[in-house]
């Protein structure tokens, strides 16, 4: 007696839906397919490797930013003995840097004469050599009495240092000139200050917004291409091996498609949440921690948009897999989708102005553009919601069309198919 015979037999007269046999009203089939997709993906070695590499990259990048923003640069500037103006300028620059919280320390190194100064530059004991007024004139062979300053380096002096010294020398010279003219610098510059302020309370550096746009576009690209390719691969695996035929005769194909799309969406969502968490934790250790709330809000929108939009991308990839007849065809059939995604990646991370506003409403590009506008504080409160509704409608429509194409293509053997043929198929 085997397990195959211990099931109550239904008579030939029994209606099929009343039978206890296999395959009847298996409404949870999509759930079984979804579970398999998730488990197989989660145990896939190359997927795990990719995930670990991405996480290390994100952690490494944020770590690098944190280190970059917290480290203090120390510059040593040589000053020739007796060049008191230069010494004062170097000390003034150090004070100015400390005042502006620039994490820059400027130290003066007194040397005996010009030759000694050149020597310390060559030996790299000093980063630069500052000469004031007449001393500079003599050193460069210009006639004495010529006013002016010279900053020399063995190579090009550091631009940050030279900017700092330039403004210090300027301030000191203007102050000295003002004193000579019997007035003060404050008196001269009185009323010439311009303050900027923004009224929405959002104080995000445009630079940060740009970087965020780049990162989100990249996350979008990484998530869609990675998970999409996996779906196409799993579809062609079943089609090529004719497992699709066994499965198609056991459960409705829309269950299979739904399970695949949802399973890979869960994976893509989990992956994005993981990346976002690591990124945010990393960010909290940097100077950018002050903007953490706005970044988090933007990231949450990104995850929501991505989750909705990815369903459409996953459906497209499933069709691409079904259109192929062998794994080798995948490159061809997934090409157009890949092209679309690369296009979205490039357009969204570089978009600004009106184009960005438009893109933030166009399905799929809105996955990146709307969260970026949220971060920049440009989006009104209702804008993400409206955009999300538009994308949800787009996703629903694409999934319906894709479901038809998938069913039409999956069981057709004999060569690569086109979308047109898949949609026209009777299957």
């Amino acid at each position, binding site marked *: 007696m*085997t*397990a*195959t*015979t211990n*099931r109550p*037999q*239904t*008579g*030939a007269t029994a209606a*099929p*839906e009343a*039978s206890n*046999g*296999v*395959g*009847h*009203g*298996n409404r949870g*089939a999509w759930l*079984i*397919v979804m579970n*398999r997709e998730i488990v*197989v993906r989660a145990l896939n070695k190359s997927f795990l490797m990719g995930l670990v590499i991405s996480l290390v990259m994100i952690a490494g990048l944020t770590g690098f930013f944190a280190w970059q923003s917290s480290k203090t640069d120390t510059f040593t500037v040589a000053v020739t003995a007796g060049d008191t103006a230069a010494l004062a300028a170097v000390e003034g620059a150090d004070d100015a840097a400390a005042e502006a919280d620039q994490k820059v320390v400027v130290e003066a190194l007194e040397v005996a004469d010009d030759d000694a100064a050149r020597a310390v530059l060559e030996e790299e004991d000093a980063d630069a050599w500052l000469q004031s007024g007449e001393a500079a004139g003599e050193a460069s062979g210009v006639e004495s009495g010529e006013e002016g300053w010279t900053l020399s380096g063995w190579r090009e002096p550091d631009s940050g240092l030279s900017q700092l010294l330039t403004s210090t020398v300027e301030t000191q010279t203007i102050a000295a000139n003002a004193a000579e003219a019997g007035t003060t610098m404050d008196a001269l510059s009185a009323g010439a200050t311009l303050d900027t302020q923004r009224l929405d309370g959002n104080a995000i550096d445009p630079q940060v917004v740009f970087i965020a746009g780049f990162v989100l576009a990249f996350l979008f690209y990484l998530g869609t291409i990675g998970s999409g390719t996996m779906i196409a691969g799993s579809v062609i*695996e079943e089609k*090529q*091996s*004719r*497992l699709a*035929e*066994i*499965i*198609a*005769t*056991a*459960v*409705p194909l829309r269950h299979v498609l739904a399970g695949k799309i949802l399973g890979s969406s869960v994976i893509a969502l989990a992956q994005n949440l993981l990346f976002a968490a690591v990124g945010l934790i990393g960010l909290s250790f940097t100077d950018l921690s002050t903007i953490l709330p706005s970044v988090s809000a933007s990231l949450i929108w990104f995850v929501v948009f991505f989750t909705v939009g990815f369903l459409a991308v996953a459906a497209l990839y499933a069709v691409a897999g079904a259109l192929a007849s062998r794994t080798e065809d995948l490159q061809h059939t997934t090409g157009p989708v890949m092209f679309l995604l690369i296009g979205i990646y490039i357009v969204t991370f570089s978009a600004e102005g009106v184009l960005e506003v438009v893109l933030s409403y166009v399905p799929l590009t809105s996955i990146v553009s709307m969260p970026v506008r949220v971060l920049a504080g440009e989006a009104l409160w209702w804008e993400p919601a409206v955009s999300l509704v538009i994308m949800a409608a787009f996703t629903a429509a694409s999934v319906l069309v894709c479901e038809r194409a998938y069913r039409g293509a999956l*069981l057709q053997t004999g060569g690569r198919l086109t979308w047109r043929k898949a949609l026209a*198929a*009777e*299957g």
Partner: protein
Amino acid sequence: MTTPPSRPGADLEVIDLTRVFGAPAGSPSDAPVRAVDRVSFTAPSGLLTGFVGGNGAGKTTTMRMIMGVLAITGGDVRFDGRPVTQDDRRAFGYMPEERGLYPKQPVLDQLVYLARLRGIAAPAARAEVLDHLERLGLAGRAKDHVEKLSLGNQQRVQIIAALMGSPRALILDEPFSGLDPAAVESMVELLREHTARGVPVLFSSHQLDLVERLCERLVILKQGQVVASGAPAELQRAGAVRHRLVVGADAGWVRGVQGVHAIDVDGPEALVELSDDDAAQLLLTTALERGPVHEFTPVRPTLAQIYREVTA
């Protein structure tokens, strides 16, 4: 013969089934191909029906249409006396032509997965899969990835996939190809369990000896058409019966007897085909007039001969 057990199963009938593979749009030169042309036969409940024919005869196309994997151009598939429904098909066990499973998934996991898709609860699916693996000698390979198995073992796994969950009919495309004789025996034993509970089993094969030995019913396909069908014994009876005649002297004269078609004459021996019983009597009388008759026997063709003739 004992009373047959009450059959809970149902007959699977194919009536005028036709499949035309259309010429692809834009290539008017290619004429549509009638891969299956008005094929009719019955796979009765509780019997093994063998489906034979050369490559391209339309066996796989017919089976795919029965399973609803391929759209039907014309004709009907009936189950239990009414048109087959998608629900019926979900209760059929099916083994497609080309073999393949998830190569990187363990045997047990994917069989349980396929069983669960057919609506069997996970614990029951597991028990049933393990039982089948045991019976086909694969118990030790349950945790192996399919790609690590030999082709014969992969074939067994594939068969198990079709037998899960008491299917109401079995449609198996070349289930025995690549199996050693021992594996064929255990497979047949398994299939017999299913026919015993009234399930119609239709399987295709090009191993004629196997089909002759196993099947209660036979359907021979040639170029998309049924050229012969029935029980093997019926087919043998229906085939043109030949007679062997051995006389005392040269038998060349048989060529002149009315209603006798001499196929082979070798000295005193002749193999002839007779148009009717009168011809037989006439041949025998003539032979006795000419001398002694040592032998006059009907010769039944083997299935292989019938097959060669109908598919020639």
